[in-house]
């Protein structure tokens, strides 16, 4: 492993042996519907609460990733998983019956990037052979925890985003076929004083910019070295902010940059305002769409940059601003 600044290049080729994606009904009506492994017809996933439903989605997605990798459960050394709910309950209950050593992580909506980075580090360091990573979110459970009750008759702000229901998981391995994780840039916490809970894109975009700048500097790379640069859940506004701030910094992203929050929903038809968000947004978009394109070599080198707003209701009510974070993962075929 070679470290420069915030970035590392792995010595081993860390294979993404499999990825799985389970999504809710609304995501199943979006533009990426054909890419997902499972589209649920019931947002509760057969459980009697949204939180339990999300836990079940996580359990199913983790099990599916193991199955698709062709490995046995006993061959998985660690699970690294996270979600948005307090105490990461979805991940905990999702992994409860698996009997695999477990790390719960929290990076808000950047969690899958954090989990993939840590997993690849553990593998590259020789501490494991196979690691299962995952991240989940649930529209109803997130609304309940972070915003207002679902049935409350309130209008959504034009800058508000729509939390993706689902879970994306992957088996990372020291042995296996591509695509491979070849490097990562771990983000710093960036806070430019945004306090509007209805504008997460504005809170997170500067973090994405900082991580991208650090990545290009550490790697001596340019945006055109990648087939596609993909941020997590900045949506339309966040993408515009990133394009502008990166342009000001001398990096032109206009030809090969997109955001999972834009890709996952049809903004006009599904009325999702600024786009998709939540841990599952980047996780299922990578696991469904972009992983498939990497497998088919339609894409050969991507920079995957999930973004997160590290906020809680309590801290915002106490007048704190909303810090953002973004982790970049280099994936190559």
């Amino acid at each position, binding site marked *: 492993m070679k470290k420069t600044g915030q970035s590392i290049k792995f010595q081993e080729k860390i294979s993404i042996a499999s990825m799985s994606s389970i999504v809710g009904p609304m995501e199943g009506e979006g533009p990426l519907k054909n890419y997902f492994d499972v589209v649920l017809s019931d947002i509760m996933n057969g459980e009697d609460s949204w939180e339990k439903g999300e836990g079940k989605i996580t359990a199913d997605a983790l099990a599916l990733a193991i199955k698709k990798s062709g490995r046995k459960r006993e061959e998985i050394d660690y699970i690294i998983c996270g979600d948005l709910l307090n105490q990461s309950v979805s991940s905990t209950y999702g992994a409860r019956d698996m009997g695999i050593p477990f790390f719960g992580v929290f990076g808000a909506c950047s969690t899958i990037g954090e989990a993939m980075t840590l997993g690849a580090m553990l593998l590259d360091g020789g501490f494991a052979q196979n690691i299962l990573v995952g991240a989940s979110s649930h529209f109803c459970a997130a609304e309940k925890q972070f915003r207002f*009750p679902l*049935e*409350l*008759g309130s*209008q959504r702000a034009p800058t508000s985003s729509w939390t993706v229901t689902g879970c994306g998981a992957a088996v990372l391995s020291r042995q296996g076929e591509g695509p491979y994780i070849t490097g990562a840039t771990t983000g710093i916490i960036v*806070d*430019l*004083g*945004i306090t509007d809970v209805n504008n997460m894109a504005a809170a997170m975009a500067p973090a994405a910019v*900082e991580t991208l700048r650090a990545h290009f500097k550490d790697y001596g790379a340019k945006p055109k070295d990648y087939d596609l640069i993909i941020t997590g859940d900045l949506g339309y506004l966040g993408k515009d902010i990133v394009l502008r701030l990166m342009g000001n910094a001398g990096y032109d992203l206009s030809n090969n940059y997109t955001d999972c929050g834009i890709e996952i929903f049809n903004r006009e038809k599904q009325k999702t305002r600024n786009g998709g968000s939540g841990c599952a947004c980047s996780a299922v978009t990578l696991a469904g769409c972009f992983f498939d394109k990497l497998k088919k070599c339609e894409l050969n080198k991507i920079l995957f940059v999930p973004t997160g707003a590290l906020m809680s209701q309590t801290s915002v009510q106490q007048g704190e601003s909303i810090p953002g974070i973004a982790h970049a993962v280099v994936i190559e075929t």
Partner: protein
Amino acid sequence: MKPNLGSQEYSDLVKRMSPPSNTVVNCLKAFAVGGLICCVGQVIINFLMSAGLSKDDAGMYTSIVLIFAGTLLTGIGVYDKIGEFAGAGSVVPITGFANSVAAPALEFKKEGFVMGMGAKMFIVAGPVLVYGTLTSILVGIVYYIIR
């Protein structure tokens, strides 16, 4: 840690780039739906008065009917759709108050009837009740003095 951009500078940039709320259209929608709810209330009052109730009694029963309607529409999942369209037009009338109590009651039922529904029922309406009551007391005191 902050990048090479001031908070104020960034805040201004975000303000310029964020899509604005369509205030004119929102006001018109709120006026139409809010007005419609009030008209329904007036129809009920007139009906009750024509049936022989006094104006005060008719007003009270009308409130009860509208609160019931707001709660019922919340329960069957319609009021949030009206709210998404009408904004303040369906928040301000008494039906909106009913919605703001019924919605959390439904949502937190899973955590039990005591610590869930009972405790969380007023998370939205609570401030209105607290400061509404407080204001009425202050107004009452002022009225008592200047009467």
